[in-house]
């Protein structure tokens, strides 16, 4: 932008300078024409005087006749008499100028006078242009006429034009900068909005994903609980119906009734199985899992929630932890539940720490926060379904119950209580190590 301004200004300046030079050249040639034309007048005067037999013509006499052309401060008409070192002005002044005299001697037709030289002649101290003409008057000698015009007007006009030019460029550039800046600001604001929208979209998608996995975990945990609770009574029913059928041999009606009981028990079994498959989105899968990876994945799923709440999350996992045998999604979800609880318990600027530790028998996941803390009574009831200390509509009271249920299904234990290391709450998940429970390596 600045470069363009400099180029435009330079070009326009150069053009203006050329015009100004041309105007000065015109002024100079005008003086030359004027001097030549006046020299013709002078020649006539001198011829008349010679014809009248006069031999003592004074320069002052001749100058008088040209007086009407000269304009004070602008145009000076000078006459040089033969043998004279100075010049006679039309206003009667006798002037000396070495520059004019030198030009006269050399026969130069035009001349540019500096401000100082012009001032010597009584003109404004600005550049002036002079035109010189010679008159050879035979017996009356060699005369000269000089027309000197001050270029003050041209110079003023040139100065004004250059100012106009600079002002124009500055004004135009200012307008371009003003409107360009506004457009740029608007564009930047648009981009900023677009970026914010994209970030909000990503956060919304991650929230939806989190909610979806929460639903899956909730349903899966319930389905598991139901399947477990139902299987034993069904087993009793099936066993007793079989015994009944065996003992009622010969009694067709009782046998048929016992078979009906068995068929209905089968049906219940199938319903529970379908419910479990649907809730879990597939069969449950135990696999060998690196606790460190599980912790990092859980932290990754909730980091946007922490960023939004202004709570700092620190993850601390030692390398080379023994692997555990678990359902990665379910146990990960238990950890996520604990992290979200900790995050919600904290004020902005609060801290949550997720660490993993292990000893010979078990791996422990610990979530600590420096938030509101938990009373002994609330800690005792924390794992009950629908128990919540959060305001109505914020918590379902199922998060910890589900986490506890998931941990239990892994033969582990979930403990909630005050943070022994200071204020806030500590949640502890302990899971037996895969190798210790005898699972094949």
């Amino acid at each position, binding site marked *: 932008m600045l470069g363009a301004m400099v180029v435009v200004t330079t070009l326009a300046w150069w053009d203006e300078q050329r015009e100004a030079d041309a105007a000065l050249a015109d002024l100079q040639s005008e003086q030359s024409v004027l001097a030549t034309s006046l020299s013709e007048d002078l020649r006539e005067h001198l011829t008349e005087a010679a014809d009248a037999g006069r031999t003592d013509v004074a320069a002052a006499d001749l100058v008088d006749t040209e007086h009407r052309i000269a304009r004070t401060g602008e145009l000076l008409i000078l006459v040089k008499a033969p043998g004279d070192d100075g010049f006679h002005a039309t206003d009667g002044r006798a002037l000396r100028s070495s520059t004019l005299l030198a030009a006269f001697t050399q026969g130069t037709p035009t001349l540019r006078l500096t401000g100082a030289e012009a001032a010597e002649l009584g003109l404004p101290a600005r550049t002036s242009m002079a035109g010189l003409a010679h008159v050879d008057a035979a017996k009356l000698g060699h005369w000269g006429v000089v027309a000197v015009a001050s270029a003050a007007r041209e110079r003023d006009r040139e100065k004004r034009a250059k100012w106009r030019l600079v002002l124009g460029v500055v004004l135009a550039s200012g307008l371009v900068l003003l409107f360009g800046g506004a457009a740029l600001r608007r564009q930047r604001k648009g981009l900023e909005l677009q970026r914010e929208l994209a970030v909000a979209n990503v956060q919304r998608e991650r929230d939806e994903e989190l909610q979806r996995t929460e639903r899956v975990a909730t349903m899966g945990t319930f*389905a*598991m*609980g*139901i*399947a*477990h*609770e*139902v*299987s*034993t*009574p*069904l*087993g*009793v*029913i*099936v*066993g*007793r119906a*079989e*015994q009944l059928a*065996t003992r009622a041999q010969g009694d067709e009606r009782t046998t048929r009734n016992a078979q009906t009981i068995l068929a209905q*028990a089968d049906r219940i*079994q199938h319903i*529970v*199985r379908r419910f*479990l498959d649907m809730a879990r989105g597939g*069969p*449950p*899968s*135990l696999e060998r899992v690196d606790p460190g990876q599980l912790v990092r994945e859980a932290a990754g799923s909730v980091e946007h929630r922490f960023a939004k709440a202004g709570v700092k999350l620190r993850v601390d996992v030692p390398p080379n932890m023994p692997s555990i*045998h678990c*359902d990665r999604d379910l146990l990960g979800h238990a950890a996520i539940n604990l992290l979200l609880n900790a995050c919600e318990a904290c004020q902005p600027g609060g801290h949550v720490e997720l660490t993993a530790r292990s000893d010979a028998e078990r791996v422990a996941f610990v979530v600590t926060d420096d938030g509101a803390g938990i009373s002994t009574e609330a800690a005792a009831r924390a794992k009950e379904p629908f128990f919540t200390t959060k305001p109505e509509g914020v918590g379902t009271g199922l998060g910890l119950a589900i986490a506890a249920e998931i941990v239990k*299904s892994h*033969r582990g234990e979930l403990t909630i209580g005050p943070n022994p290391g200071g204020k806030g709450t500590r949640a502890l998940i302990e899971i037996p190590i895969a190798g210790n*429970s*005898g*699972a*094949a390596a």
Partner: protein
Amino acid sequence: MNEHDRPRILVVDDQADMAAVIADALVDQGYVAFAAHSGTEAVDVLKKKRVDAVVTDLTMPTMDGLDVLRASQQLDPSRPVILMTGLGTIDSALQAFEVGAYQYLLKPFRMDALTSVLRNALARG
């Protein structure tokens, strides 16, 4: 076959009804059956009586089926242990396989499925 020759089975389930129905069915099939209602009780029986095979529920409070399995193996590594499990804990049962369980049965099961597994298990020993 006198009582001493008949196979002796320990049935472990914290649900007394379940333990009873299985024990009854086994007696009907000619086995000698003991019922225990907790892991601790089961270990007591294992220590005091001759038991040829154990049928235990997997999910029980305090001492679960895996603990009973371990205790039985400690006392007699060749004694077959059959685990019973509900749908939600199949994975734990699979894990128990790796620990050394002979077989697992998905609740509810038909009694002839249990006696068939038991016959094979005892024939192995």
